[in-house]
């Protein structure tokens, strides 16, 4: 019997699959399609202190193996998430959720995290210091060890739940950034967020998306994500939620061998809304094929 259970900072998950923030809304679109309680957890839409409409449209472009998006953290704001979205979610999802939090200043991150910390449904706070689409916004924190450290310290000071810092791949060296989060007291690391990309429309001769640049994700970025998870696993003794281009059960196993304890699935949900249940159903077969009885045993196995 294949054992899919993993543990993230004391939170036991039935399996390592977590739909990634921004590809799963607040869960209900998918709850209409399948029982989302089969998931390990899910990371809800990046939420900020104030409501945000986000970027003008168009917000999407693509290549044969990826999408590029610039939604720029559209969300109803933390108070409405607490008063409306979480109670609605509670009816369809009975596990702990990962609360993805964005921000524009150290104080805003701290305030937002302090408010969500009181919510019983939240198992982990995932602090997004890496949205690539917000000018002078959170990516500036995520590309600088001092910024990551300041946000992490401020959030840890006002929260009791495990704090995972979600890092940007758009840096020269991920290691000092992950180390800064660890030293500042992070309980874990989430990586990678999207890579900064662009497409240009040949007819208009202008960038396809209104924000010009956007976050590039999909199966094309899997090797970059694996490399960075591998590097961070070597450098930092914290649990890792690995993500970036995961579209199959094999990719999940590969991400765990690189060093991930749990695995987020992002762009794949937007192309195939049943991507997560399909990957979950296929995991035991892939485990058997490679002689894996417990997923816990393979974390960091490539090192």
């Amino acid at each position, binding site marked *: 019997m294949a054992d899919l259970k993993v543990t993230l900072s004391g939170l036991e998950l039935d399996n390592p699959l977590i739909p990634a923030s*921004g*590809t*799963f*809304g607040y869960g209900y*679109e*998918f709850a*209409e*399609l399948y029982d989302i309680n089969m998931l390990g957890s899910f990371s809800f*839409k990046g939420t900020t202190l104030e409501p945000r*409409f*986000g970027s003008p*449209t*168009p*917000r*999407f472009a*693509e*290549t*044969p*193996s*990826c*999408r590029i*998006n610039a*939604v720029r953290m*559209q969300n109803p704001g933390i108070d409405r998430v607490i008063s409306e979205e979480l109670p609605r979610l509670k009816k369809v999802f009975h596990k702990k959720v990962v609360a993805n939090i964005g921000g524009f200043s150290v104080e805003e991150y701290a305030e937002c995290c302090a408010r969500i910390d009181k919510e019983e449904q939240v198992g982990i706070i995932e602090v997004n210091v890496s949205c690539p689409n917000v000018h002078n916004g959170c990516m500036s924190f995520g590309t600088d060890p001092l910024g990551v450290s300041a946000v992490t310290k401020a959030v840890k000071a006002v929260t009791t739940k495990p704090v995972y810092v979600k890092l940007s791949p758009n840096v020269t060296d991920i290691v000092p950034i992950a180390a800064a989060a660890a030293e500042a007291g992070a309980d874990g690391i989430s990586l990678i967020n999207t890579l900064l990309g662009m497409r240009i429309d040949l007819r208009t001769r202008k960038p396809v998306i209104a924000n010009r640049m956007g976050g590039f994700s*999909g199966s094309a970025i899997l090797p970059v994500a694996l490399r960075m998870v591998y590097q961070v696993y070597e450098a930092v003794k914290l649990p890792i939620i690995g993500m970036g281009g995961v579209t199959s059960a094999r990719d999940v196993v590969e991400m765990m061998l690189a060093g991930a304890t749990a695995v987020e699935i992002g*762009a794949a*949900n*937007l*192309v*195939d*809304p*049943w991507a997560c249940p399909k990957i979950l159903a296929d995991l035991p077969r892939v485990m058997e094929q490679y002689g894996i009885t417990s997923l816990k045993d393979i974390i960091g196995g490539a090192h």
Partner: protein
Amino acid sequence: MCGASMKQGIYTIVEHKALTKDVYRMVLAGDTSAMTMPGQFVEISLPGFFLRRPISVCDYDEKTITLIYKVVGQGTDAMAKMKEGETMDMLTGLGHGFGVEKSGDTPLLVGGGVGVPPLFNLAKKLIAAGKKPTVILGFNRAEEIFYAREFEELGASVIVTTVDGSEGVKGFVTDALPPLFSFVYSCGPMPMLRALYRAAQGTAGEFSLEERMGCGFGACMGCSIMTKEGSRRVCKDGPVFDKEVLEWQI
């Protein structure tokens, strides 16, 4: 919102032909049970393209879904090369469509170019409900006209307009508005919708909007628009909206 949730399925192309130089009709056979109202759309998966393509549904019955699409980019160009007998992966039953019950007795349907198709199943359902729809179909020139005869065969009163006057009424759809109508349904390019919005003040209506989409089912926020009632997703809350909630200047 729509009653049944979307379904994913494999559909077989049973008919595929050009209606004009760059507008095609594709009839697909498969499970149509997720379709609940006119104005909904499907998301098609094409080999070599990461994102699915949203295409409005022209007509559907128990066994088939009819799509009419215009070649506007690489995705629809690849779609146009597909042959009868080939299969396609689609999500069906997406979006909130037209409210047939709102029509009154003499509704007006206004379609512009490739915005015409979703009005076809709507006209069919209105006529089946005993209503007397007038349909205005707007095109740039005579060679671009499609489906005028099909709407007439349903029993609708059809007015065709062309910008260059090569057939029907010369001008825009707003140059051919009847003096009285009970409700207005429309789909077409944004300048046309805005002109109609101004011209049809005082009569309630529903407009189907178009926006570049990420997922097509409400998860990614890729197609959000701002309305008088706040932010709405074109794919899930629309594509059909009460025109009164649109935040447009008169």
